[in-house]
Structure formats: C-alpha cells, structure tokens
C-alpha cells in the first residue's frame, strides 16, 4: 500500500501553496476571482480544526493541508512532542499525524512553543522541520517516515536561541537545508529521496540564523541565496560552491526576514543589522551593494531613517519602490535606487510596537496582508501612500509576546497559506480555512 502510494507522482496544482511564501517563495498569489473587499461579517469559514502550538505556517498541496505543532506533556518540563499533520483540504479532517519527541531546553523558552518552519511539499513527499532540528521526509499519503535527520546529533548543530527555522528547499533532486552543522555544514543538500548528503557549504563558526534560503536566476546562473548572520552567500545549488559573498553582520543572528528579488535588485532587511540593497550582475553570478541601511545596533541608528529594519516581516518590491514593516510596526516606502524614505505610516499595524510583523502576498496589483494582530488586509501601495481597501479580523493571536501592546497581550507570527480561493491560517489552538472567493 505504502509503496504503491509512493510511486504515484502528483503534480502540484497551480493554485497550491506548497512551501514557505508559496511556490518559489515569492509571496505571489496568481488566482483570480477573489474578494475585492471583505464581507461585513468576516470571511466564511470552511472549517476549523484543533491543533497544538507553533509558528510554522501551513502548506497546501494536492488536496491536503500540512502543518506542524508541538505539545508539552508536562508543563514543568521542557520535554516536547512535536508533530506533523495532514488534513483534508476540503473538510479539515485529520488524515494522519506523525510525532517525534524532543526537548526545548536551550531555546529561549518564552518563545519555545513549537516548530517554526513551514512544511515543504514535493510530489509524494512532505519535508518537515522541528524547532530543534529534526528533519523528516514523510509520505504525503500516510505520514510514514521515508528518511530523517537530527541536525544536532548528525551534524553537531548548535541550535540557536530561537530554534531551527529554515524550511527545506527542493531543487531538482536535492533538498537544500539550513543546518548550521559542523564542520562547514551551515548549508547542506541531501538527496531528496534518500536523505544522502550531496554537498555541504559554509562555516558554522557563526550561527546559522533564521532566514529562508531562496533560489534566484541572475547573471546567467541559478543562485542559491543563503543569508546568514555574517554574510549574504550565493551558492551554486547543484554543488554548493560559492559564487559570491557579501559581508552583512546581523547582531544576535536575528535575520528571519526572507530575501526579496525583483529584477536585478536583491534586498535584505533585519532589525539590528540593518538593510542591504544589492544589484545583481546581468552577465555573471556576481553582486554589489547598492546601498546600506543602518541597524538598530549601529551608532548611527536614530539619525538615519533612510532604511527599513524589519525583524520578521518580509518586505515587497513594486516598481521602483520598496515597502515593508520595520521592527517597530511602521510601514515604510523607500526608493529602491537610493534607500531614501518616501513615506511611513502606522496605519497598518495601528501602533508603534516592538517586533511588529505583517506578511505580504501579492495578488495582481494589490496585496493581501496578514498583520500580527490577526487581521487580514487588502491594500495597495504607491509612492503616494498606503491605501487600505478592506480589513477583517481573521484569527485571534495566541503567540506569546513579552512587551505591552495596545492590540492585546499576544501576537500571530505564523504565515498563512493561500490556496484554491481560500486562506488557511493557524494559531496555537486551531487551524482555520476561510474562503476568499468573490462568489460562493
């Protein structure tokens, strides 16, 4: 039974959401027929299902929703049971679960509530990563383990304070992972079918960080962009060989935002280490720094506002402008060419507050935005300003937060999935599928 299921190759539907930020990790939703504004009573709920806690976003592929979570059998202990689930996309019924034990001792415990990485679906396999570095390749049909790795045990990984976050990235037959292993195994590629190591690259004398690897095409080459707290590294995804590296120190290793490419521009942002706008060479796999923005740890911080210091939120590039939420909840527009600040507003988050986050997904000329207050917003951006079209409350935030906010004591730092005219969103108690269809 398992074998027969495993041999069936199920191509992803065009409107699936198989990985972090959707196919290609670009945060783009190509579907049409979605709502122009939200109904007064909120989006219609297709289903909701109870789950445990975690930050990982859902992935949706071939009729299944995949999510990971965690529970603590004894709240006085740091021992944890992590879990992967598959749910029926139409009904929310749990199709299977796969559990593994771990221990969150060593993580910053305020935030040690569950896995971080969004599952990655590739044909008949789903790859999940636990907060302590348990990587499992599971059969999408029944959740059975095809192969697995334990980063700490197998590769000597020193798990950083906020856990392992890098969602596995499928590239051909390779599964490319942010491992943080030693020696020189910060990035690793495994055979996606067997788990056999193909290559390893980059020193782990420094922490792995929290950013998601992406693959871009520029300068006549496919480039794996691995942004870690010391450098921005471009690697050949087939061999792990380094094309180029640009020094970019990020204090405390906190770099959860994903790199964003638009044409020849490649942008990186962090709260403490500041921002870098790179220009990709058009003829060779090379890059140069177009401008730098100071981080909060730089002495110049507070005197130079021509930058964007996002902490978790991945910004967007539209035309000649960059838009994003900085670490204090302020939505900013910058000029790509110079970094010059064009405008800023608190209208999206609603207050200046530490580590505020919003997730942007492009849909045509507009954006769906999930705020960490649990709202879903439709908005457009231009150099003239932020235009909020519609807003609805989607889910109650439950993720722990250690500062005071007007919006409440908790946040939602989980990226939702957009698939098949629905949005799938989770908190620490439930996963919910809601309809975005214009007409029902």
């Amino acid at each position, binding site marked *: 039974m398992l074998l027969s299921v495993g041999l069936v190759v199920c191509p992803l539907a065009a409107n699936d959401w198989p990985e972090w930020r959707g196919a290609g990790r670009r945060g783009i939703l190509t579907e049409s027929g979605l709502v122009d504004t939200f109904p007064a009573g909120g989006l219609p709920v297709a289903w909701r299902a109870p789950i445990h806690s975690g930050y990982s976003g859902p992935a949706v592929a071939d009729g299944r929703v995949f999510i990971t979570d965690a529970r603590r059998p004894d709240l006085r202990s740091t021992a944890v049971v992590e879990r992967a689930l598959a749910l029926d996309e139409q009904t929310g019924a749990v199709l299977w679960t796969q559990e593994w034990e771990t221990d969150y*001792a060593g993580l910053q415990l305020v935030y040690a509530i569950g896995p971080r990485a969004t599952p990655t679906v590739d044909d008949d396999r789903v790859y999940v990563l636990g907060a302590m570095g348990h990587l499992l390749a599971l059969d999408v049909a029944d959740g059975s383990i095809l192969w697995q790795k334990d980063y700490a045990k197998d590769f000597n990984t020193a798990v950083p304070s906020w856990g392992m976050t890098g969602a596995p990235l499928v590239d051909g037959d390779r599964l490319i992972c942010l491992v943080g292993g030693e020696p020189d195994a910060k990035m690793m590629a495994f055979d996606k079918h067997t788990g056999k190591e193909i290559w390893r690259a980059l020193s782990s004398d420094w922490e792995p960080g929290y950013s998601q690897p992406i693959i871009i095409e520029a300068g006549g080459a496919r480039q794996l962009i691995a942004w870690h707290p010391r450098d921005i590294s471009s690697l050949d995804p087939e061999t792990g060989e380094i094309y180029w590296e640009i020094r970019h120190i990020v204090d*405390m290793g906190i770099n959860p935002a994903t790199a964003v490419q638009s044409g020849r521009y490649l942008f990186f942002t962090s709260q403490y*280490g500041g921002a870098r706008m790179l220009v990709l060479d058009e003829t060779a796999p090379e890059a140069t720094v177009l401008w730098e923005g100071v981080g909060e740890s730089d*002495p110049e911080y507070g005197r130079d506002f021509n930058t964007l210091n996002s902490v978790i939120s991945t910004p967007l590039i539209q035309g000649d402008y960059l838009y994003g939420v900085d670490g204090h909840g302020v939505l900013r527009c910058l000029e790509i060419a110079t970094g010059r600040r064009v405008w800023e507003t608190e209208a999206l988050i609603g207050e200046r507050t530490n580590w505020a986050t919003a997730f942007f997904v492009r849909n045509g000329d507009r954006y769906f935005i999930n705020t960490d207050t649990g709202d879903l917003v439709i908005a457009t951006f231009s150099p003239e300003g932020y235009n909020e079209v519609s807003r609805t409350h989607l889910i109650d935030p439950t993720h722990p937060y250690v500062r005071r906010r007007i919006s409440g004591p908790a946040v939602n730092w989980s990226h939702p999935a957009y698939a098949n005219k629905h949005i799938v969103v989770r908190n620490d108690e439930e996963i919910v599928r809601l309809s975005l269809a214009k007409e029902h």
Partner: protein
Amino acid sequence: MGRKSFVVRGFIALGILLPPVPATHAQTSTAGGRRIVVLSDLHMGVGRDSSGAWHPYEDFRWATELELFLRALDADGEVGTDLILNGDTFELLQANTPGCSYEDAILGCTAPEALARLERVLGAHTREMTAFGAFARAGDNRVVVVPGDHDAALLFPSVGMRAVAAFDAPADRVVLAYEGFWRSVDGLIHVEHGHQIETRADRFEGWPRPFITRSGRQHLARSQGQRTVQALFDAHEARYPIVDNLADDTAGVRYVLAAIGAGDAGAAAPALLRELLFRMSWQQFRMDLDRGDVAPPAWNLAAVRTEGPAFLVASLPDDDRFKPLATRALEAGGLDRLADTLSDDELRALCDQRAAVRRARRRFERILSQLDPLGPPLVECPRTPETTGPRFEYFWQSRDRLFLQHFEALEGGDQPIAVFVHGHTHLADYRQGNFTRVEAGLPYVVDGFSPVRDAVTPIVINGGAWQRTVTPVMLDRVKAERQISDAELLETLHPEQLPPCYSFVQIDAYGDRPGPPTLRYWRQGEDGAWTAAGRCGRAISR
C-alpha cells in the same frame, strides 16, 4: 510614605569581629522605609598639580556633576536616603607622597602615611566633601562609607575617623562600615565593594583587617593585583590618562601593553596571564536568552590538562592584545608552572568562559562591552559526550558558584540576602539578567543576575563606577574611525572626553521585600541637562 526613625542595631549575629574603634558601625539602616542609593568607585585622588592642571592620577574631576546629583537626589522623594559610598571613594593607593614603599613588596602604607594621603585627597576635593556633608545633613539622609581596595586604609581607625569627620555632619549621619560591608537591618540588602569576591587578585587576607605588622608597625597589605597591575598604571597614566578609566578595570592593562609596544611580558607573564584570564568580567556576556533553564555542560578536564599551558593561551581570543605576549611567554617556557597550579574549578571556569565567548561571538552580540563582536570565536573545551547539544549550554555556572560561595561565607543573619550590590570592576550591569521576572502577567528582564537556579533572589548587581568610563568596544570603535594606533588613541583621549555618565544602583523604599534594584546613570543629555536615566546613551566626544 513617612520617614522612619533611626534604628541602631548590633551586628553580633553576623559573627563579625568589629575593630576596637569608637565610631558607630554601619549597619544602622532601618529596613524598607528608606531609599538606598549605592555609588562606587569615585576614586577621588590627588587633585591638581602645582600648575593647576589635573594631576594625571586624578580620575575624579566631576565635582559639579556630583553636586548636581546630590541636590537632585535629595530633592527627589519623600523618604530618607541611605547613600552608600561603596568603596574606592578615596584613591589612597595611587599617590607618590608619601611613597609607602618598602623592601617587602607586600607592605603598604602605615596609618600615618595613609592619613597623610587622605589629607591630600580631602584638600583636593573640598567641593565634593562639602556636597556630601550637605546631603548627609539634609532631611533624614545618611551616608555610609564602605571601604574598598583602594581606600582599605580607612580601616585604620585614625584614617577612618578622619574621613568621617571630613563630612562635617552629625555622628549619626555619616558612618564608616568597619565590617567591610554594609547590610540593611532586615538583612535583605548587602552592599560591599567587590574586591573580596572570587579569587580576585585584589582580595585581602583577613578582611576587614587587611593589616600586616612588621617591626612593631602596622602596615596595610598590598594585594597581588596591586603589586602587578597598579605599578603598570602608575608608570603610564601620565602619558595615557584614561588607562584606568576602562571598564572593566583590567582592560587598561591590555591597552597599555599594546600601546607601549611591549615585546614580552618577562617574568610577570604568568601573573598577568592569570590576572587577565580570571578577571575577565562576566558582564561581557549577555545572559537574557538563558533563563537558567538549561544544564551546564561537563568539560573533559583530563583532555584539557593534556594541553598544558597552551590551553591557557588558547583561552585568550586571537584578538586579545595580551595574546602575543602570552604566546611568547609560552614559547619561552615561562608559563609551564602556571598550568600546574590551576585547580579543577579554575579550569572549569576557563572552559565556561571560552564557551560563553564563543557563543557571544557566534551571534555577533554587539551589546558586548569587552569584545569586538566581530572577532574570532574561541574553541570550546572538549565536552563529555553525554553533555553535547543545546540543552547543555549553561556557561555561567562558575560565576554562580563563586557568588554562592561568597554568600555562604557572608550569611549569618536571620534572612538570606535578597539583593547584593557590588562595584570594583567599574563596569556596570546593563540588563545582564539570566532570568525573567513576571509581574502582572508580563515578563521583563531584571538588572543583575541570580546565581541561584530557578530563584529570583538573591539578585546580584554591579553598580559600576560613579566615574566617566569607557569600554574596550567603544574605544576600538573610535580607534577604527580615526585610524590611529593604540598609543595615539590613549595619548589623545582625556577623561573629560569620555561619556558624561555616572552609574549608580537604586533600591526604592519597600515593605516586606525589596523590589529589583535598578541601575541608573546620572547623565548629561545632548542639550546639556543632567538627569537620571536607565542608560548612558552617550559616546566619546571629539
């Protein structure tokens, strides 16, 4: 909140043998109802030279700031304040006259010599003493003078009484802590200078009676640190005026040696290496990401010992200014005996420190004050196989053990200490908590740390120095900006250019239990106004 009456209570319960002096002892505070403010390490010294310029030895050039601070302190609050001057208030070590120089290097000043030094200090700092006296006389305030290592001579009765008299305040308003520390009457708050903690080179045997009698004369003892480090400062402070303004205070040794281009450390190498390895401040590591939830790793000490003295040199980061000298001493065989003298506890402490440095540098902790966060990480000591992995990343066990041992030696009151305040290193704590306190459902990081696992007390806090200080990281930043050498940097900087911030610890009046101590800075803003703030936030001026 009303002012409470002055209560005198004996301190026999603490088992301290008091010196036979007529002054009232220091443990005279009422508990709770008074505000406690702790200032450390003023180092009021010899003042100006004959030309009217500041003597290079003089570190306390801040009479105006002190006057403003004391006035503001007195005006702020409805309760009386116990102002604790927590050691090294008077600089009685760094002075040329009288020389207090004896053939036996462990002998320091006699009482008459120390008194002569104190008289010069008092004469050079009349404004400061007047301000302190006015504060002591005002309202229901009191001043307690706790001796430190640089003014341990206050423990000579004649010297102590002269210092107290110089405040020109009623006898019950200014007292000297002849016990060598101050503790609140309820036993919950303990304040001491800090040189007696750890195996520090500045500790005195027999404290609070740090005396040696030779030929019928009583001398102040000279500590190991004074013999090895103070001489270096004395020799070079005229040329490099800020060498002892570095925080922590041993950082200046590294800079001086680099600035003078020392080719080797000679016979002093073992002592200097030991001093620098074991006095590296714990404050250079952030700990707020580790709330004590994880277990300590077990280091493979047998494997460590096979490395011999090379292990000690490898425990210095590659960018440590002392490392070239230590390496030469290693190659010359000058460190062979040092390795053999280290106990298992000391090796564990070094391994903890190496791991903490490694962790801090692996994540580019720019908040570090002692180490360039971009520098090379150290290599961890080998662990036992069963303690690999992130659940064994508690590297501060050595520090905790040292403080707990110190507490055990101090205990004896009816209640365990809740707050322990010290100074001495000149480097204040800033959010160095390794635990998070939860109040009203909201957690926040506490200044200081608790050496007791899973407990929020005692809180240990280092108040730094009521001085202008500079950290190595700040200094290196200026050096990089100006593209100058160590020597040029040290020659061109003067104390007046250092950030106008003076740290102190405040404990508000309380009921049954003291709240968390807070680290404050009396600082000058960009607009020139002086206020108390939670951070310094100022840089070196041009």
